[in-house]
């Protein structure tokens, strides 16, 4: 899980394309969308694509999306649960 969180932090920084944000700046338990980093609905859609592409997990429902993207930890937990490659 922690490894996946670190991996996601790096990918999110790449998606955000912010010169002043490092992977460590992406909060693990804090608010992910609409928080200090300015992550908005378009970034969420880019993350949805990345998660489907890299982990084979589809997120295509608005309510589900809001729950999954509550924090980085909830996102990682959802991927762990659904990803064919990461399943225990």
């Amino acid at each position: 899980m922690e490894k996946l969180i670190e991996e996601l932090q790096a990918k999110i920084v790449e998606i955000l394309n912010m010169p002043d944000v490092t992977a460590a700046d992406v909060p693990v338990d804090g608010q992910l969308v609409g928080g200090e980093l300015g992550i908005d609905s378009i970034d969420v859609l880019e993350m949805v694509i990345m998660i489907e592409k890299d982990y084979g997990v589809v997120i295509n429902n608005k309510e589900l999306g809001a729950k999954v993207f509550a924090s980085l930890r909830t996102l990682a937990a959802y991927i762990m649960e659904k990803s064919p490659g990461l399943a225990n």
Partner: protein
Amino acid sequence: MSGAPIYIAGMGIVSALGRGAAETLQALLQSRHGLSVMDLFPVIEPRMPVGAVDTPDDPRDAAPRTHRLARSAANQALAGSSQPPDAIILGTTTGGILTTETLLERNITDPDAYRWHALGSVSDDLARRCECRGPVITVSTACASGAVAIALAMAMLRRGLAKRVLAGGADSLCRLTYFGFKSLQLIDPLGARPLDRERRGMSVAEGAAFLLLASEPPSPNAVQLLGAGLSCDAFHATTPQPEGQGAYAAMRSALSDAGLTPGDIDYINLHGTGTLDNDLAEARAVITLFGSQPPPLSSIKGATGHSLAAAGAIEAVVAALAVQNGVAPANVGLAQVDGQLQLAPLMAPLHKPMNTVLSNSFGFGGNNAALVIGRSRKPAQTLSASSLPPLTITAAACLTGAGRTQATWQAFASGQTCHGCLADQIVCEGLPPRATRRLKRLPKLALALATEACRQLSPEQMPKAISLGTAWGALSETHDFLQRLFESSQQFPSPTDFIGSVHNAPASQVAMMLGAKRANVTTSGGDLSFEQALLAADLLTDAAAGPILVMGVDEAQPVLSPLLDGSVHKAGCLTDGGGALLLQRGGAGSGPAIEVLANGAAPQAEEIASFLRQLDFPAALDKCYGLILTGIPAEHRELAESQLRALLMESRFQGPVIDYRRRIGEFGAASAVAAALAVKILEHGSVPAALIGGPEQPLNGRGILLLGLGPRISVVRIGPP
């Protein structure tokens, strides 16, 4: 203040519901829905419902689908007219992209195959076919395009600049919009259900519609275009302002333009796409303006799908049909209305006499347009010829391979070329990193220009409206979206690239940065895109309007620019940049005047004399103008040079003539750079020696003419004041 009504002298419509007014009306009366599963080109499963037009491809006709849809609707609107229209104003977002996508997927590298790509080629094609020799404007303000085109046509007629204008919109289905909206999760897999509590998005569609608008009544009982209102949310690239403030502003302004109050409206044709955010914001705007008991209302997009740039024109025709036939269409696709909206849309067609219909069209970038169509209850006002003072330039900026404004001016004035592409780092200097993090080349260029043109302005001097011309739009985003779409077998195109790929994305970024909430127009007419933006700005700016920012900007994209732009291909070198002018109405003494004197089909050699007379040029051109800056695109050099020779001979102009593309470089918006440099030359007071290979030539208070030559021609005067 309201303006005079304009008459609808002809209508044409083609949509998923059928072809022509009679078929469309029949479908609306039967509440038929025209959506079908996507089968126009191969797409991955699950295939989404779309609003496709039943029209077979003709292998003998190379014209792309958008062009053919536009022709079909234009032919209907012009049927029965013996004369060509004086002007054509068309909204489109797709142009020839459907054909381009196929070519790119097959790695076709012959530029000739891409000659139908440009948005402006749709209107140019119509102008050629119906022999319209007057002004052509191609508008691309996303899903508001068709309605914005009609609003501009209305302004042109009210000003007395034309007597008959063909105005409307056209868009075909294509991979860019189908997969783009899919990547944004804005497509309802069950088909659009506008205002329904279970709604999940829109159905992408195609179609075209035109109104032939006239300043004189074609028949005693003709339906009229009574008013139009434009606004910009200046809020977000895709999401509407949640309270519908921009939608409210557009509707209110359309009503005021028509001289009506909310209580006068008999039916509202909603934008009603079926997306969660649009329908909610629009409902809030309707309730704010009309109160809790608004007039009967419905969206037809559950029946037609959302035909993007065509939608505003299609729904203007539907509004006219509603008035003519006394019937308001049902909100097809709706099972149970979303209680949160607090609206009661029509579940079945409503038969009752109708005098006034309000039709809404909103688009990406927060571009909003509302039209009022009906029969005037008041005696018709008479049109008065324009007595507005010209627009004047209060600030200018440009950007080229040589640098930003000052660096470009220094290079230009010392006779150096400005070719090349300025480093991204310099373009972004002074722009907040968070505002540009998702942007590629074109919006960054636009923001850099807007920032420089609006530097040190007080809040009341800031522009409220934006008019931006671009020949090719955001090529980087378009290229990257399609590349990822093809590489990932249609699975993972980038939503960010799709949002950025729309032609009006740069203008909406500028509006957000400046907080400009009035009209926001993007024009795309090849090498004369900036000139079209100037013309649109003139039409949008009445005596009471605030400052307007007019820009021309184009980017160089290594793959697409040489394929699409024949002049870039010929030059063999990539150059980009643009120019921005801050304009205001009147304000004598504050800066040089700027005026589009001509914009139309190029005159034949033997017509040059009469062309010059129409421009109201003084007999001795030299007395008014001390310099001609002439735009000779490399693609049309031979034609343009012969036009220039004829013009110079006929006008006996003896002053200096500068072929500015040789110095600035080959790209669509080079004329916007030339306009900004003309302002610099006027400030300088004389034409620098290095530009003309002789001593400095004093202007002595004379102005500068900006000529755009080629298959279409434009003449813009800058100064004298």
